[in-house]
């Protein structure tokens, strides 16, 4: 089971990357408005057919 010594730290690195990207997205204000993007997707290809 020595593989644990590699796999667990690797998992932690991935967790770190996930948290890091969430923090990045939050800093960029991507969670400031949670309503409009959900609606905007409905209008994306209107008028561009």
């Amino acid at each position, binding site marked *: 089971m020595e593989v*644990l010594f590699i796999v667990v730290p690797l*998992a932690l690195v991935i967790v770190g990357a*996930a948290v890091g990207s*969430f923090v990045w997205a939050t800093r960029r204000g991507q969670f400031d408005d949670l309503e409009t993007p959900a609606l905007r997707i*409905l209008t994306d290809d*209107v008028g561009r057919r």
Partner: protein
Amino acid sequence: MTTTFPERRVSEDASAVECLCAHCALPVPAGLVVDGVEHQFCCDGCATVYEILHSNGLTAYYELRDEAEGRPAATTAHAYREYDDPAFAERFVVAEPSGDASIELYLEGVHCVACLWLIERLPELASGVREARLDIARSVVHLRWGPDEVPLSVVARWLDRLGYPPHPYRATSLQEARKREDRRWLMRMAVAGATAGNIMLMSFALYSGAFFGMAARYEQFFRYGSMLLALPAVFWAGAPFLRGAVNALRTRTAQMDLPIALGILVGFASGVVNTLRGAGDIYFDSVATLIFLLLVGRRLQQRQQRIAADAAELKHALTPLHARRVEEGRNDVVDIPVMAIVTGDLLEVHPGESFPADGIVEEGESQVDAAVLTGESRSVDVGRGDEVHAGTVNLSGLVRMRAEKAGLETRVGQLMEAVEEAARRRAPVMSLADRISGWFVAIVVALALLVFVGWSTVSLSEGVDRAIALLIVSCPCALGLATPLAIAAALGRAARAGILIKGGDVLERLNRPCTFYFDKTGTLTEGGFRVWAWYHRPGTEAATLAARVAGIERHATHPLARALVAHAPEGPEAISPDRIEHVMGKGLIARLDDGQWRVGAPAWVLAGAREDSWCRRKLDEVVEAGATPVLVSCADRVLAVIGLSDELRPDALSSLVALRAWGHEVEVLSGDHAGAVRRTAERLGVARARGGATPEDKLAIIEASERPAVMVGDGVNDAGALSSAAVGVAVHGGAEASLAAADVFITRDGVEPVVELVRGARRTMRVIRRNLVFSLVYNVVGVTLAATGVIGPLGAAALMPLSSLTVVASSYQARTFRKPRR
């Protein structure tokens, strides 16, 4: 700026084919139907938008739009020239490094996906606009444009012509700080959640190791791994709780953060000791989960509070921001932003607009509604040389005024400064959960010591283990969630019922016996006038006299005149306008076949008529009662004495009765004349009433109140009182300034929502108590089991989510605030 639409009427003849507006799909009034044209419009606004959409290939708007939703386009004729003023740019526009400029504008009339689509197509319509991004929940559009290519006024006119009149809206530094705080809180939640989940995974390995055996080096590996992950969870994500606890200790006040921090730190410390020791339980998983759940709970409460505060601030953006300055010499009138007004400017104010500055009238005559500033229900006549104040409303005539004071120096500006001052002075109130937490910590620590001493007789290490298990089990997760969740759920329900509450503590304050101070004009009364007393001379007939008075008054614009017209049961008599003469500030003269009639102010009417004992008696009666007197005379005989007063809201009496039934005291506190206030109070059965109160008086009375004061009002003159009261409630239709000052504002009409507010607060408090009892019972059971050694850490970990779930369910199923049944 208001727009008048042609009146829209549904065709009375049901068989007639209804002609629908091509833009908004509402029926087109018969008078506006143009024969032989395919597309018909209900108003100019709709026609404009339709034309723009068709000539720019944006007809997809109609596909996106919700068919059922019909509302006419709210375009105005405003030119938005003040948007190009340097003073405006300095206040609202942000210059970007790329040379572009950006601004946030609050838009009226945004309601659906089609609006979103159309507004974000703005760059296709107005060249020079780089980007338009709409936040639909707040109706705020973020615009980026090239200031050298297109002036902002042109962009604003485009938005207006599309049916979304813009209002500048600048995020204050407070809001910026709030946004940063929100983001940081989200990051804390992310860190706490991710570490909690991963520590849990390692704990699983450790637990199974405890059952099936595990090599010591793997066990240590997982212990150290958990500890590493717990570090950021405790010291960064959990920092708000630790900091709160330190503050509580420093100020020697009990606070919910105290037992939470105690649980976190004891769990973490014993985990570290056991890790270093290489034996025993580590509590990192419980600690990280606890932090995560508590962060979520507080976030929910904050979010609801922000929604209410945001709504109040956006409403504030609707305050008109432009003034008309007369360019003397050129005889031209230009729009300028109010920030650009300087002393000595000559300003033009149209009927229906509010005065932009304090100053002196130079030209024109009008009536001014100063209720917002003074609480006075009667309008004041102004003419050349009279003083007018910013914020008061010009009712009837075009007026030119010389500005003497602008901005913060005006009466309104100074009142707003008093509001901020009062808000700073307000003492914080300790919540129920905080009060409990003090006892909680004391009891838990005492118990832990007891357990330690008890088990130490068996063995020292056993004593330490038991005591720590007890401290962890009693960790007040459910207790910490009990209040925030109940409040978050209640605030959400209240918002749906039309009551926006900016702070959860309001709900607790309303549960103590309070004194409610009601403003009169616009709060207990509608603000409009009504005939309250009508005395006609014996021998004349009431109905014909009423019709005659209504016929004369129909030609006047005065607010009192409307009440007299409405009073005639059979409608006003037809009187030709060329027989009427207006005497400004006095009344009307009508030259009719049976003589000269006068309707108006007593002193003026009596100057041309005999005053006898009947007339004097009735007049005294009316004045005594606090009503506004109006006399009617024909030739030299006074025919009628009329008393007018502002109309009581229909739900005022029943609402006050309900409040008193809960043990609250009710008083009336108004800036209107003492007599009128006293009479209103008598009709409502209120013993204590104070009239003629200046804004400063109101503030002083609120601050001197023995019981916690609840101020209910609508005007700028109430704003100071609203912000210094324990709870300030701004009612529907109130001045924007009062919304900013109040803790609660109501988006429904009437006094009844105030009752619903108190009722909802009582129900919420019941939910909070129930939650606290639940979590305390859980703790008592858990502590007992841990102290006697029946459950180990595993059993405690299983009990914890159960208690939290109970609290969540109990908070969200409770029907605290209810929508009115219609």
